[in-house]
């Protein structure tokens, strides 16, 4: 996936266009179908254990649940009408993101990346030994890597 710079006619209506091939499109849709991966109980307002059962902690979990439900509804629209996001151009396929769709997609992909990492047992990815892959956890390694690749491609647009 590659960012295609395009001068905006109206800066307020930001449109970001990415060149994407059909294999990448299929992979992106497959990864997005995993959403959400992080559980609401993953979120902690504070490291202070006394706040663990507080009303503010419950509010955070409710807020994250509402956000995930909203993100999920947008994803359902994407799966129902992919032509609103993926468009044919002469000689290529494009992913077109308008308005807040860029931030939405970044958040969704990072939920999948971080959630997959949690499912893998929160390994230290920068240190050996490598993960012991099993049939059960291999898919989370794939989804963590793939979502990260798509995030990096998206972030090229704002560099």
């Amino acid at each position, binding site marked *: 996936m590659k960012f295609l710079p395009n001068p905006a006619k109206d800066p307020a209506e930001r449109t970001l266009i990415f060149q994407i091939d059909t294999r990448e499109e299929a992979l992106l849709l497959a990864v997005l179908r995993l959403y959400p991966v992080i559980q609401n109980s993953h979120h902690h307002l*504070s490291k202070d254990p006394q706040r663990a059962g507080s009303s*503010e902690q419950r*509010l955070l979990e409710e807020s994250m649940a509402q956000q995930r439900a909203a993100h999920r509804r947008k994803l359902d629209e994407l799966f129902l009408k992919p032509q609103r996001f993926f468009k044919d151009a002469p000689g290529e396929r494009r992913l077109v993101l308008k308005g807040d769709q860029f931030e939405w997609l970044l958040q969704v992909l990072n939920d999948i*990346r971080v959630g997959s*990492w949690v499912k893998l047992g929160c390994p230290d*990815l920068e240190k050996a030994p490598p993960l012991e892959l099993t049939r059960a956890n291999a898919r989370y390694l794939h989804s963590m890597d793939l979502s990260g690749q798509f995030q990096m491609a998206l972030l090229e647009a704002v560099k």
Partner: protein
Amino acid sequence: MPEISAPSIVPDTTKEEKTKSKDRPDRGYLVICWNDPVNLMDYVTHVFQAVFGWPKARAERHMLQVHQTGKSLLVRETFEKAEHYVHQLQGYSLHATMEREE
């Protein structure tokens, strides 16, 4: 955070968040971002820019502080604002908390 690309580091001339306890006695909550090995460095920088409206150099400085020291104090705020920022940061799946300043 996995190292994806080396960000350009520009000397940050902005002042750290300093409280004037006499003027703003209730700004006693610290919003802290903690390191983890999974969030991408460019992503963290982008989130700091998006949530706080910071210029890139400042966002990168805090991102590097998280990466190198394990955490970064992002802002010192009232309870309500600190809570708002933590909700925003966790909405991006960053490891952020608010702590009472001792």
